[in-house]
């Protein structure tokens, strides 16, 4: 965690309280909240690496399109 991560986590706690009226229920929750820093880095690393993107409803169609072809 760097200082920018610390700032982001702090802002996230404020955001959660503001939007949802929920405070960290325990110390473990505070520790879990810091995981967003690693998650953010994961998303940053993916930027530009995937050249596809569609809407969420495409998932069911994708499952059908990718199913096993059974040989008669």
């Amino acid at each position, binding site marked *: 965690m760097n200082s920018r991560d610390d700032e982001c986590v702090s802002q996230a706690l404020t955001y959660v309280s503001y939007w949802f009226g929920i405070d960290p229920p325990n110390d473990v929750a505070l520790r879990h909240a810091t995981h967003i820093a690693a998650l953010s880095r*994961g998303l940053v690393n993916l930027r530009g690496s995937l050249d596809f993107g569609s809407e969420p409803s495409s998932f069911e169609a994708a499952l059908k399109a990718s199913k096993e072809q059974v040989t008669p």
Partner: protein
Amino acid sequence: MTLDDHSLLELGLCELADLVAAGEVSASEVTQASLDAAGTAGRAVNAFIAIEAETALQRAKELDSQRSKGAALGVLHGVPLAHKDMFYRAGHTITAGAAPSRSLTSAVTATVLERLEFEGAVTIGRLNMAEFALNPTGHNKHHGNCRNPFNLDYCPGGSSSGSGAAVAARTVFGALGSDTGGSIRVPAAMCGLTGLKGTQGRVSRHGVMPLSFSYDCVGPITRSAKDCARLMSVIAGADDHDPTCSREAVSSYERELDGDLRGVRIGYPANAFIDGVHVEVQQAFMDALEVYRARGAIVVPVEIPYFNAISTYTGIVQRAEMATIHAQWMRESPEDYAAHVSSRIYAGYTLPAVAYIEALSQRGALVKAFCKEAFSGVSALLTPALRMTVPTLAETDMDSGTPETEAKFLSVTDHARWVNYLGLPAMSIPCGMDSRGLPIGMQLVGRPFAEATLLKLADAFQLDSSWHAIRPNLLAKHSG
């Protein structure tokens, strides 16, 4: 034919159904044996939240009466089952493994329960589970920890902990669980059982407590692939009550269990699920590959594509969805959750909406690209089910442990949860025992709607191995 209770409970689900259908065993007789075992071995592993003896015996009596009148019999006629306590039955209460103050009731009965009972199954009770299906270990502060029948100090796996423990302890012949990130496959792996998570939408979720809309799957845990095929054939298929349930045709799962793997190609990961895998798990896995080769399969290394993207997106979707479902209780009474549950739910509120939508938006394209590359030359992928040997309850107790305990707890599902993002079918089957006498499992992953292929591969492995037939030590104490 005369079988004592112990011998009855050692039968496979399909074998028992055949004997009941032939009139050699009555539904009442086997239901009583099952209830007795639930009260002894089942209690020792704390598998049951409720044992429903009166209704089970009444139901068994009705089934025996139907048989004596020559009525048509279902494929599960007289077979005792029990299920994770998250399937609604109209007018009755379920706990979802949570505090009694949060017990849930519904006006509907889960479609899967109706389908099993239409085929003649007898439900003998409701099974222990992780609180709101939110841990992979078996811990539960409200109903007591569930325990592994192979060694009571060890995890039975979760979140379908009671389903794994009850089936392994020979109290029932099969159980339903749910799988959002490994919750069928992990208890199957830890308890030496066979568990199947179908393709997303393969099995109805009508009347089932939700955790994550995009990932939740219902599926069976049994002692063998053949038994698993029987239960899956009953519960899979379209349901008008569940618009998310697929209308794809359901295969004849049992009919395809022919053991013939000549020329079938199986892939094992060349670039993932290797680092940090326990040496005993690695050895059991390599031995399993040889079993497949000996049966005529072609076993080849496969590069797992897009794994960083899949891993990153996997956690975002589940966290955001479970946080949404639990928001009201998190506001009103967060103290009613165990700390390991509320802390994980809380993390979901910190995620930006755009990250959640990005994860869902990429899902369709990623599953297409993944299948095109990973399955281009193989029918299924094979991985170790867990990276570790079965841990103890103490070393994964997040509520009283250290950050190291937490890390171990969180890594239990490393090999399982990515499959839920892709919505692919996956199974866990036993492939060895570790040096402490605990089961080791392996995971089969297939293309969408390839449940029949996975069951065939699992069944063929079990024709040439006996890991799935090993009885837990606990049973020596309770059944001799």
